[in-house]
């Protein structure tokens, strides 16, 4: 019953079409970019980071959620599993950040024929994605190195390296492989590709269910603010300020207590799930037999 009510948005098979389309196209492009070598000019990297224009275009033309999730899954399947480099948890982080960024970019566009909107959304998508991956990379060193502040130079250098890589990716890959092709493709494909999937083109009166409660602008603002706050918190902790040093010992104690609490909780969860799984397994087998 609920399907009939939601029908004016997209039917489940149309969602699946968008999902499959975006997955196979972005997956294919990922395979190509994985195989192309990158060139370095000093610390500046000239490489095809990714063909971000494909998911961006599809997110702007179709329902952004299904196109974004499809593209992220396509990257994991084609670019990682099929090339034999599936990385477990690392892929989860990529999956979440990429689909989030593409979804936000897609829902920023209300009218795909408006070039200004398309351009701003495309570059915003790339910036969000690169920003999240930069924060994750910095966070990895932060968590991975014990007493990061005690090691001279490391905290600053990781921030500088990652910040530089972020700018490099946004300015080089972001403009060449996301902004320009998206601006070229979206107006051309608009109205042509939708009938092939049996749906109407997106018009500017279209609204998304979540869009009514939480506007994309709010999400973007919230995420950027949250990340910025984390970033500044991090900067102040790693010390650029001598006065804070006294506080630091105490803070660090809390961090280590927090970490040990997380480990304790994790081990408990691990044990419980192990037990749960084993018993469930036994029951399942009995049922099947």
């Amino acid at each position: 019953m609920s399907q009939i009510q939601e029908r004016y948005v997209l039917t489940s098979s149309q969602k699946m079409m968008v999902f499959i389309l975006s997955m196979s196209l972005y997956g294919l492009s990922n395979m190509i970019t994985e195989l192309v070598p990158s060139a370095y000019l000093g610390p500046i990297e000239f490489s095809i980071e990714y063909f971000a224009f494909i998911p961006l275009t599809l997110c702007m033309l179709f329902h952004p959620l299904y196109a974004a999730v499809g593209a992220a899954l396509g990257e994991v399947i084609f670019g990682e599993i099929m090339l034999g480099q599936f990385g477990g948890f690392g892929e989860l982080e990529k999956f979440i950040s990429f689909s989030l960024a593409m979804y936000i970019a897609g829902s920023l566009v209300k009218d795909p024929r408006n070039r200004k909107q398309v351009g701003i959304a495309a570059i915003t998508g790339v910036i969000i994605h690169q920003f999240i991956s930069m924060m994750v990379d910095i966070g990895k060193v932060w968590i991975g190195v014990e007493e990061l502040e005690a090691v001279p130079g490391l905290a600053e250098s990781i921030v500088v390296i990652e910040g530089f890589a972020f700018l490099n990716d946004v300015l080089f890959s972001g403009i060449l492989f996301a902004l320009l092709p998206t601006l070229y493709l979206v107006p051309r494909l608009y109205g042509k590709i939708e009938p092939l999937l049996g749906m109407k083109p997106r018009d500017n009166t279209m609204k998304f269910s979540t869009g009514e409660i939480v506007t994309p602008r709010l999400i973007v603002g919230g995420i950027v603010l949250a990340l910025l706050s984390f970033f500044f918190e991090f900067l102040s902790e790693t010390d650029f300020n001598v006065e804070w040093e006294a506080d630091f010992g105490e803070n660090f104690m809390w961090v280590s207590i927090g970490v040990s609490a997380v480990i304790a909780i994790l081990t408990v969860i691990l044990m419980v799930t192990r037990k749960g799984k084993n018993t469930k397994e036994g029951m399942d087998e009995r049922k099947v037999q």
Partner: protein
Amino acid sequence: MEYRQKLFDKLSVEQVKIELLNTAYGNDQTFLAKLDPRTLFIWYLFFGFAPWFIHNQAILLGMFAFVVVMMLIARSSPLIIFILCLGLLGQGGYLLLAAWFFGGDLSTIMPLLILTMKLSIISLASISVFTSMDPEKLSDGLLKVGVPGQVSFSISYAYRMLPSLIEEYHHVFLSFRLRGKAPEKHGILYWRSIAYFVKIAMLSFYPLMLSTSKRARTTVEALETKGSFFAFNNPKVKAIKLAHLTFRQRDYWFLTFSLLYVISLFIFGILYS
């Protein structure tokens, strides 16, 4: 450099397809490949996550030795391992240089070495676990753990469609080259030719988007006819599909051994450091 040569040899379209099937189905005879996917997931859950929070060098060293042995058992391809080492060394070295630039000294090396060791434990664990699972096993395992049926469908769909997708892309690319005009001069460091090829590579997606959307529609219509949307997350269908997944004796042995090893490692590491 020998590996780079090998990499370039593999770049022809046919070769890529063969290589893909090889990485997917190449090693199904190893000890790890015979384990249940859930066993491997549980093992990976610890070795892929715990190293971040362990700062004890003895424990890390012991875990590293364990994953290296696992990798040898899994018989991972040397190319992947080589790429991994290169990446790890490159990142570590780069950080070290930058840290020295900001006033670090020799004491910077130790934390960086530990960080590199953590990263290599995690990546070796994931390589040995995931290269020893063929795609069916991985998707069955994911389905069993509770990942939606669409994901495992997508994995099989990708393996089925990839050869024809690559071929179609290749044809479009070649026809763009045939009708277009390559730059007469290569330019400094071939930049003109590179820019030309990259541009064609992107333009080729325009026709491909249209044809793939037709294909996606056909696929979904076929799925509808078969009633697959109903079947994806139906518990009864799942039970029949996953009936072959069972914990055997070797799964229990493997998990028990890993657990004992890790516990003794922790006791040893905490007592002697």
